[in-house]
């Protein structure tokens, strides 16, 4: 089931930061990874990722550097900064909290957060 536009927008930053926590990456690869992870249910308009990455860079949560792709093309890579990792920890806590609340409302086991 495709995710709503609002949910896609809200989850973009934690997803990008999580991917970068696993290693340096670049725009196209990040989009492919999200697509794969969601089983195709999360469709980003590809171009929308870049302004978000630039905002994260401006907020000093990630840093960028230029490298070379396998085919020799110039490529911009992104790396998670320490402040980005801290932000990710906080965002994960928020999402866990939300998940716990929904789970409890559903009548499942209370989730201790």
């Amino acid at each position, binding site marked *: 089931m495709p995710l709503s536009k609002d949910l896609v927008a809200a989850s973009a930053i934690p997803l990008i930061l999580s991917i970068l926590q696993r290693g340096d990456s*670049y*725009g*196209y690869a990040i989009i492919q990874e999200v697509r794969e992870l969601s089983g195709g249910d999360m469709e980003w*308009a*590809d*171009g*929308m990722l*870049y*302004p978000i990455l*630039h*905002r994260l860079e*401006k907020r000093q949560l990630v840093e960028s550097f230029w490298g070379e*792709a396998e*085919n020799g*093309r*110039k*490529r*911009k890579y992104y790396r998670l900064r320490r402040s980005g990792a801290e932000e990710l920890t906080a965002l994960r806590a928020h999402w866990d909290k939300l998940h716990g609340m929904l789970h409890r409302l559903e009548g499942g086991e209370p989730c201790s957060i």
Partner: protein
Amino acid sequence: MFDLEKEVAAWSEAVHAGRCGHAGEVAELSDHLYCEIDRARATGLSDEQAFAAAVAKLGSRPELAAEHAKNRSLLQAGCAALLNGERSLARGERRLLIAHGLLWAALMLVYSLVSVKLEVPRTSGWLLSCVLIPGWFASELLLRRALRMKPRSGG
């Protein structure tokens, strides 16, 4: 004949049109387009078809431009407004604005020369900064407003 490199460069430039110091963003967007084009070509599409598919996946150009515009600093926004404002003018209108600017510049130069010649430097500086320069800006604004209100020929 379809020139892929030219099309990719033109498309990436257009997204960042009016933005100062955007070479890095253009290169990044071009790299993304090439990645998607390579993928599409591997499925048997021609260069032209692959380019069209890649561009469609990136999203609409106005949407993208609007999203990038959110990241602009005040200085970059001012620069973009200036550049876009100039682009929206017809050739004749641009010439009129240039002539207007030159006329005011000449007026200020003549005034400065005359005031030096007449040896009234104390008042000349005041008049130049408080009357002539604001007068120039005011008349430029009025002229631009008049140009905007002028009915356009040919739609």
